[in-house]
Each structure stands twice: as C-alpha cells, then as structure tokens.
C-alpha cells in the first residue's frame, strides 16, 4: 500500500515553461488536494477535488490547473511558470470530510 505518490521529487523550470506535477493515491479516497508550502510557512490550498470529474479552487489557484479523470489521479498543471511559483507542492487525500489527510512526499519546484 503506497499511499499518496508524487512525481517528480525535484524540478527546475525556466520562466514561461510548463509542467505537470503528478499525484496518485491507492486508498480509493474521494477527496484529493494540492497544497503549496513556502519556506517557514504553513500549507495553502491550491485546488481540491471531491471526486472524479469534480474540481474546485482553493485559496491560491491562480497560475494552476487541475483535472480529475479517475479516483486515483489528480495532476496539477503549471502553464506559464513564474518565480512566485517556486515552492514545495504537496498532494494529499482524505477518505471523507473531517478525517485525517494523507500526504505525499512533496515536489520541490524552483522557477528561474
């Protein structure tokens, strides 16, 4: 049972490039989330999904897009990378509302 798996672990992008951060979970959780964590700060919600085919914006969605075609996968897309998107990105999932979240190991992204 792998839990939540994120790839890649590290990435350096040039300004204006695009990339997709992958996230998959094998716990059959309906709820999935993308957070970003800036140095010395807490996590901020970018996007979330309550089930396959359903996504919605979180606190800081600008510059990002998501899709949820299957229960397992929740990729995060950056179309035009900007230095402000330099951060550590965490994917998470929960079984239902008001339950513990399971996090991936994170993707450290640097935009130069």
């Amino acid at each position, binding site marked *: 049972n792998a839990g*939540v798996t994120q790839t890649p672990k590290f990435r350096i992008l040039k300004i204006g490039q695009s990339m997709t951060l992958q996230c998959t979970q094998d716990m059959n959780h309906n*709820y999935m*989330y993308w*957070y970003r964590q800036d140095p*010395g*700060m*807490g*996590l*901020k*919600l970018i996007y*979330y999904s*309550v089930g396959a085919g359903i996504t919605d914006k*979180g606190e800081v969605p600008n510059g990002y897009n998501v899709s949820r075609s299957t229960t397992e996968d929740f990729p995060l897309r950056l179309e035009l990378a900007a230095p402000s998107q330099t951060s550590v990105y*965490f994917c*998470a999932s*929960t079984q*239902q*509302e*008001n339950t*513990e*979240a*399971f*996090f*991936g*190991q*994170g993707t450290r992204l640097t935009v130069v």
Partner: protein
Amino acid sequence: GESVGLHLPTLSVQEGDNSIINCAYSNSASDYFIWYKQESGKGPQFIIDIRSNMDKRQGQRVTVLLNKTVKHLSLQIAATQPGDSAVYFCAENPQTGGFKTIFGAGTRLFVKA
C-alpha cells in the same frame, strides 16, 4: 477572516521533558482539529485529532486539549525524544466544507540531547 495560528514559532526542550505546543484559532464554527508533524524533506504526517464535542484526547505519548471558550488548541508530548524534532502544524476544518483544512504557520520543535 479565518485563521489558525501558533503562539511560538520555535520551541526547544530537553530530551525527556514534556513539550507543549500551542495554537489559536479564530473560527468558532470549526468542529474538527488536527495536529500534523512534518520532518525535514517529508510531507506532513497525522499525529492526533479532536472533534469539537470533546475537550481532551490522548494518543501514544501525545495529548490534544481543546478549549472552545478561548479558541485554543494545544499538543502535549510526553517524555520528548530526539525523534520528535520536527515542525508541528495545527489545522482546523470549518463546519461547512469540512474537507478544506486551514493550516497554521507551524512550530519548530528542537529536542536537546
């Protein structure tokens, strides 16, 4: 607006002592609270949770206390060990949209041997 914050950004304790990490929240309607531990280079890991109909919950070496009157949450770690060194986040789930967790900024715990 809604916010979850921590009183002390850094806490240093001696190995074997008890640690207390505090947290204030502003949304009195929140009904689910969680503590997460984050070790360097890793994702947050669930420690313990508490619902608003309780004021205390105990786990293995950890206790969470909830004071709804003053909107205060604390995490107590008994007999703190070097492996407890990490950043600890408190988090709250609002009553509506109870899956949109709001995280505090975190407290870094240093355990001195």
